[in-house]
Structures are given as structure tokens and as C-alpha cells.
């Protein structure tokens, strides 16, 4: 116990002895760029980090990265912002987990002179960050909605939507875009089942199984991402109806694009996380070289990928998809 008190005293002295300073700048002249993703393990963010690392190397900058522990982990993202500002980064690229809750922390970083750019997901309000490099998720949903409408060719639709999770913006935008593209409103009787999957393959399978219990005649499945779509496919195959049900998705990861090629998924809206990361890093290094701060929204593009194109909806085939996929 005495040792404990002595030790605590020593630690306090250490803190006090060096206290009073403000964080000094980095010892070197290397520009530091921070990247904060939603999670560490999702392939989408892994790819984004790879892209950012490569872009930083090319620009002669140093990349620092951090991530939340789960999708929606706001506290870890705040902590990462604080630590990166303390480390003297020029700019921070962030995919916000909680689009509203992160805003005060971003404001503090910007007040400290750091350029903050949102990747993939806009903050609420969108102008809480200096700039946004992202896919138009509403449009991504709309494309597969339009595709599904044309592919169903007037057959009465029985739709299942396998969504993300309550309160997560990206999921809502894709879902709403799909409904608009297909031309139905929320609550339309043709939507026979809606379940959350957290974008996870096993939860996607469970959700599809339960939807089929509820409505065995489902013939169109909208999925938030390809893991959920593959889970749904497994459930449909177990029922022996995978050939009669149209599955559409969003993401364009390599695994997902291969699933489009093999026919497990009919079509997917491909997005480009590498491009987001590269543009983001370049914006920070340009700013560090005395250039202007990046502003506004840059759409990094979305492409419909399918091997069974329909009239009136622009699409590329899976050869293009595989050449440009991520993961």
C-alpha cells in the first residue's frame, strides 16, 4: 500500500513535472494524415486503409489509422480524433459511425486547424466536415431498384428487404433508394418482410429463413450488402427456390462481384473505397503544401454490375466489375 502511494505520487510528479506544456508539433517534417474507420475488420474499410496507405506513401506522407470496435462505436472515434490532433496530423479522414454524435469532436479538431474530410458516410449536418468523398448511397439503391423493376418484367413482386441496422444512415439511404428505383412506397403491400442483418452473412441467412417462413412466395430480395445477399442465397437454395428469386445488392466487393458472375446475385451497385481514400489523402497533402482546403461533396461514383443487363438501365458486366472490385 505504501508502495502504491509512493508510486502514485511518482506518477503524479512525472505528469506534473512535464505538465504545463502544450502538445509540440511533430519532430519531423513529414505530413501526418489520420484515417478513422468504423471498424477494423470489415473488408471495405480494410481496402480503404490499403488505398490510403498507398496514397500516403506516394505523396511522402505518414498515415495513422484507428477504428471503432463495432459499427456505431462513437466513443472510440472521438478518442481517435483527440489522439490524432495531439499527434499533430494535418488532416483527418473519417467514416463516421454515428453521423450526429461525432459532430462536436470534429468541430474541436477543425477549430485546432485540422482539415476533416468524411469518407463514405456524410455527417449530419453534412457541412460539419470540410469535405465529403463518398458514394451516393441513395443512387446505389435506386440503380438496383430500377434494375429489379425491369427484370421482374411486370410480374407481381413479393419483396423482402434485408436491411442494415436501426439508426444507421447508409442503410436507410440504400433502402429508400431501392424503393424509389422500384417505384413503391414504404409500407407498400408488395413488401412482405423487412429484417435487419447488420450486414452480416449468417444474420442475413437467418433473416431470409424467417422471411420465407412468413412468406414462402417471395420473389425479389433487396440486400444491404453482398455478405447479407450470400446469406440470403444460402437460405433460398436450401428451399430449392434460388433460381426463381431475384437477389440484388450493393457494394461491389470482389467476393460479391464473383457471386454476380456465378448468378447467386443478379446485380449489385459497385462502389469505390480506394478512390475515396486516395482522394482524401491527396486533399490533405495538398492542404499541407499550402494549398486550399477541400470543400463540398465529391461523388466517387457507383456502377451497376450485372451479366444480365436490362433495357433502360446502364450497366457494366462482371469482367469490368472484377477488374475494379475491392476486397
Amino acid at each position, binding site marked *: 500500500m505504501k508502495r502504491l502511494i509512493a508510486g*502514485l505520487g511518482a506518477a503524479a510528479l512525472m505528469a506534473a513535472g*512535464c505538465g504545463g506544456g502544450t502538445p509540440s508539433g511533430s519532430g519531423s517534417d513529414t505530413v501526418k494524415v489520420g484515417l478513422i474507420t468504423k471498424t477494423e475488420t470489415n473488408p471495405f474499410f480494410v481496402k480503404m486503409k490499403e488505398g490510403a496507405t498507398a496514397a500516403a506513401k506516394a505523396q511522402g506522407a505518414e498515415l495513422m489509422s*484507428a477504428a471503432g470496435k463495432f459499427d456505431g462505436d*462513437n466513443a472510440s472515434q472521438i478518442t481517435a480524433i483527440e*489522439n490524432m490532433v495531439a499527434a499533430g496530423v494535418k488532416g483527418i479522414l473519417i467514416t463516421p459511425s*454515428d453521423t450526429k*454524435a461525432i459532430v462536436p469532436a470534429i468541430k474541436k479538431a477543425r477549430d485546432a486547424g485540422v482539415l476533416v474530410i468524411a469518407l463514405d458516410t456524410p455527417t449530419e449536418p453534412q457541412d460539419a466536415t470540410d469535405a465529403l468523398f463518398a458514394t451516393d448511397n441513395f443512387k446505389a439503391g435506386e440503380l438496383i431498384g430500377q434494375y429489379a423493376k425491369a427484370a421482374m418484367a411486370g410480374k407481381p413482386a413479393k419483396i423482402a428487404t434485408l436491411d442494415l441496422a436501426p*439508426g444507421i444512415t447508409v442503410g436507410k439511404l440504400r433502402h429508400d433508394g431501392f424503393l424509389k428505383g422500384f417505384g413503391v412506397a414504404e409500407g407498400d403491400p408488395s413488401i412482405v418482410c423487412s429484417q435487419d442483418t447488420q450486414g452480416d452473412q449468417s444474420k442475413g441467412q437467418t433473416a431470409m429463413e424467417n422471411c420465407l417462413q412468413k412468406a414462402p412466395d417471395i420473389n425479389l430480395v433487396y440486400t444491404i450488402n453482398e455478405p447479407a445477399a450470400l446469406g440470403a442465397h444460402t437460405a433460398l437454395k436450401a428451399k430449392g427456390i434460388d433460381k426463381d428469386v431475384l437477389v440484388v445488392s450493393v457494394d461491389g466487393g470482389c467476393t460479391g462481384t464473383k457471386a454476380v458472375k456465378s448468378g447467386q446475385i443478379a446485380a449489385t451497385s459497385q462502389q469505390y473505397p480506394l478512390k475515396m481514400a486516395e482522394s482524401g489523402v491527396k486533399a490533405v497533402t495538398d492542404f499541407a503544401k499550402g494549398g486550399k482546403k477541400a470543400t463540398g461533396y465529391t461523388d466517387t461514383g457507383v456502377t451497376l454490375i450485372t451479366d444480365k443487363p436490362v433495357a433502360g438501365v446502364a450497366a457494366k458486366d462482371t469482367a469490368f466489375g472484377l477488374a475494379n472490385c475491392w476486397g
Partner: protein
Amino acid sequence: MAVIEATLPRRILTTPTAGPLAALVIACAFFSLNSPQFLTGGNFSLIIQQVMVVGTLAIGQTLIILTGGIDLSNGAIMAFGGIVMAKLALSMPPLLAIAAGLAVCALFGLVNGMLVTRISLPPFIVTLGMLNVVFALTHIYSQDQTVTGLPDELTFLGQTFQLGGTRVTYGSVLTIALFLLFAYLLGQTAWGRHVYALGNSPEVARLTGIRTSRLTVGVYTLAGLVYGIAALLLVSRTGVGDPQAGQTDNLDSITAVVLGGTSLFGGRGLVMGTLIGALIVGVFRNGLQLMGVPSIYQTLITGILVILAVTVDQLSRRRTR
């Protein structure tokens, strides 16, 4: 603090708090050498702000673990308390909203305690069930919406004042004060001795005339109240009511307790050890980030440290038998 020694049984003093403290000091020295930004007052203030929420949850967790229990529901209870405070503060005086949030957290603690004692259910199961119940209630009550536009009175703990050359938040001061308060309660009062006795042997505690059921319910309720204070700290730190908050904080608070040298078998440990444990996690996260090491390595190192800490606890138990 030194007075505590005279009043505590010798067995508790063998608690290996020296190990965690050494780890903390070594980690600080290491990061000071490897990052020019680490050893500053501003950075230390930041680390305290970053660990205060989990640290405060870990105070309640320490109380429960000392009685031989465990609480998996604390992060969820805190998230609910935070949403209650945030939502109510939009329509009533902030002080009332805070009181309501504290009360509701204490109530969940009371229910946990009742289920553990009256129906003799294992704390692990009770709080696992409560975790799911409260998590769901949080999402139902908030409709999954983050609550923004909070009055300043609700987030006052996030305000800073000048201490020496450093800006310190009121929340940091409150957290340290809470640790000192519970160190006093556990070390200097009859109630504290009863908590240790209960954790060491419930049967012996009962035979010496301690009302073990009432004591247990009291500990769980008090822990709930502490989670309510953590909720207030959380709201002050983030500036919003966040229904997604605290999802891994139950395990993170157990991590802080274990790293601080408190035994998961109950009856041995110190709340100041828990503070050290929380600081170890915070110092590693901050220091590695300053060095530019990805956060997954922080998780790796935390895991290794936990296993080390439990190993030390086991070995010291063998020696004291």
C-alpha cells in the same frame, strides 16, 4: 490513504497492485521516449477524459466483483441513463433530467441485486439477461435516434478550467473524486469491511451477523447509481445522447478491474487498482496512436496484459494459501 493499512485484513494487502502500477509507469516511460507529444499536461488531461467513462463504470464493477459477482449490464444501463437524461433535458429542467437518469440506473441495479439474492440466480446470468433487456429498452425508447441540441447544463462536466498550464475537464475531477470516495468507503468503513467479508466467504459473513442479502442488494443498487454518474460523464463528453453507446464497455470495465489486480474470485482488490487498470488501457491506446500504431495492436496488447494480470493473481493466491 496510509491509514487504510491498519484497518484492512492482511490478506487484502497482498493484492498485487504494485504490478499494475509498475506496468503503468513503464508504459509511460516507454511512450515518453517514443513520442514527443506524449509527456505533456495536455495529453495527460486527454487520457483522463478518455478513460473517465469506462473508469467510472469500473468503480461499480469493482464493487460487484469484490462481492464475488460480475456485471455484464453496466454499459447498457449507462447508455439507457444517458438517453433518459438527454431526452428529458429537452423538455424539463436539466437537473430533474439528471436526477431521473440517476434514479433509473439505480433502479436497474436494484433489480439486478434483487434477482441475485431473492431468487439466488448467478450474477453472470442475471446481468446477461439485463444487458439484453436494457439494450432493447434503450433502442425502443430512443427510436434509434441520437439526441442532439442538449442544454449546456447537461454537459457542464465537459467544460474545462485551467490547472497549472493545462485545461482540465470538471468530469475528470469528478471521476478522480469518485475513486477517492470509494477507496475511503471500502477501506475505512464497516460497510467496506462487510463487502470484503462477503466476497471472501458469504457463509462466514452470514454467520458473523452480516445481513448478506441486504448488503448485496445495496452494492448492486449503488453500482447502478455509479453507472448513472458514468452516463452523465458520457453525455458531457460526447455532447449528445447516443443509443449506440457503451456496447463493449461491460467487458472494458472488467478489463480495468482485472488489470488493477482485483481478483475475479471476490474479496480481494482495491478500487485505486481499478483506476490504474483503466489508465493502463488509456495510456496504451493514446501512446500507440501517437506513435502511429494501428488500434488493433492496442487490442492485442490489452488482451496479453489481462492474461498476465490474472496469472499474477492466481500465483499470489497459491502463495497466500
